């Protein structure tokens, strides 16, 4: 059985169907890329896993237990923007997760426990290549550095799933390549399970061990909102870097709905 299972999941807003009949299972240790045209429910799919939304019908299990419809420390997340706290230095951003776990009342560790947490945070910062930037505030960092920080911040909680919502979409091509190397290394070294939503199909195939393509299976020209999207293609890739099917490249061009 997979780490994350979707059983016949539907998401509807009123009479608008966003996701229909999503039925799949994600294995522990896999790197799943999620692609699809705008409006095809990629983000809704991710929001379901984060717990920002609950399915209208169907069930989602994480590790055999029903997923709580509320964000929690078992699911880490990195958004395209606003993932880090602007009022905390890089080091405090990373320590935040440990502070919350260790100090329910003040939300901040002190004394020897804080020193231990800071050491852990510094090691994590070094692992994402921010070893020298612990004292910087996010406003002083480049976009790539902020995303590195956001990844370090999420990983310190050792989440069972790491969710990436277009994490490299706003970065320069060169920086993006560095980030690909970083995330692949972290994924391999730490045995992470990663789900990544991306607009970039090449990126999806380069990084993923599996690619899910979301789109609408059926269309009603008179009531386009009545049919939802689902995973229409599911490519298990033996190794990262497999060839991209032509059908997907064609799909990238046209919008859904």
């Amino acid at each position, binding site marked *: 059985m997979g780490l994350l299972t979707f059983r016949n999941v539907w998401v509807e807003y009123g009479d608008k169907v966003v996701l229909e009949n999503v039925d799949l299972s994600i294995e522990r240790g896999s790197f799943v890329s999620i692609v699809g045209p705008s409006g095809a429910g990629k983000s809704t799919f991710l929001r379901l896993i984060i717990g920002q939304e609950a399915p209208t019908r169907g069930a989602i299990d994480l590790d055999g237990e029903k997923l709580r419809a509320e964000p929690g*420390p078992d699911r*880490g*997340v990195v958004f395209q*923007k606003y993932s880090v706290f*602007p009022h*905390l230095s890089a080091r405090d951003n990373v320590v935040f997760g440990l*502070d919350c776990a260790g100090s329910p009342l003040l939300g901040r560790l002190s004394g020897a426990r804080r020193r231990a947490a800071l050491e852990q945070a510094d090691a994590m910062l070094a692992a994402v290549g921010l070893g020298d930037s612990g004292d910087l505030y996010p*406003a002083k960092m480049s976009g790539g550095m902020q995303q590195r920080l956001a990844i370090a*911040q999420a990983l310190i*909680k050792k989440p069972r799933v790491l969710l990436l919502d277009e994490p490299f979409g706003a970065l320069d091509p060169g920086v993006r390549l560095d980030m690909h190397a970083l995330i692949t290394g972290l994924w391999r070294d730490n045995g992470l399970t990663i789900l990544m939503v991306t607009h970039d199909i090449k990126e999806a195939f380069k990084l993923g061990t599996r690619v899910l393509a979301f789109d609408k299976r059926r269309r009603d020209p008179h009531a386009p909102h009545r049919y939802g999207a689902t995973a229409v293609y599911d490519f298990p890739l033996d190794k990262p870097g497999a060839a991209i099917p032509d059908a997907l490249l064609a799909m990238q061009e046209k919008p859904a709905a």
Partner: protein
Amino acid sequence: MRLLNIRPRGGLAILLGALPLLAAALLYLMASQARHADNPRDKLLPTPAAMVEAVQLMAKVDPLTGHAPLVVDTMASLERVGSALAIATALSLVLGLGLGLLPLLRAKFGPLVATIAVIPPIAVLPILFIVFGLGETAKIALIVIGVTPVMVRDLAAHVAAIPEEQLVKAQTLGSSTWQLALRVALPQAMPRLIDSLRLSLCPAWVYLISAEAIAADTGLGYRIFLVRRYLSMDIILPYVAWISILAVTMDLTLRLIARRAYPWAYPERAR
């Protein structure tokens, strides 16, 4: 070069800023001199010498009361405006954070705060005098009622505008509602709260002077309205200047505190 691209710097900026003030002072002196040439006992536009003399008189200890009126008035007014703003700030912080962060509270108390915010505070001053008497409480209550709703709504809107990504991220890092309020919302609310307090200084002084004008036996506003009966412009004008100096000092102090305590909120700008 286009007008909007001309940026005065350094000494020039200070000079440009000082010129209108100097011009206003010069204009006053000329007008005052003209009136005194016609009538040496003119009271409407007193000469600087007369104003200095009046201030010296006000700053001198009165043998009857044992106090200097200027000092007593200043202390009384500062105490009122200070305690009122402290209460207003504390209330705004708690309510603003609560309303901004918790949809449940917003649904329950948002309409109430919005309703209170549109009541003209001076209109409830009689009620305050009836309920609290003519003492300090009514005056402090007027300032609190006058500035708090605006500060609460401003802070609530600011907290509600914290990106959802940040709130979700904090929860995925194991943060409880309390921890999120304390470590994510509160620090980001503080610079805004101080800014909103700075903007509230002016209305706070308006309400203070109004309350003092109607019922008080000390205070800067009380004194101005008292000597108005004798057309004592030589006291009124220095008092008004003194109030503006006090208000500007408070404003600059708050600005300095905000920039010192929350440097991340004020990244250096290009201009």
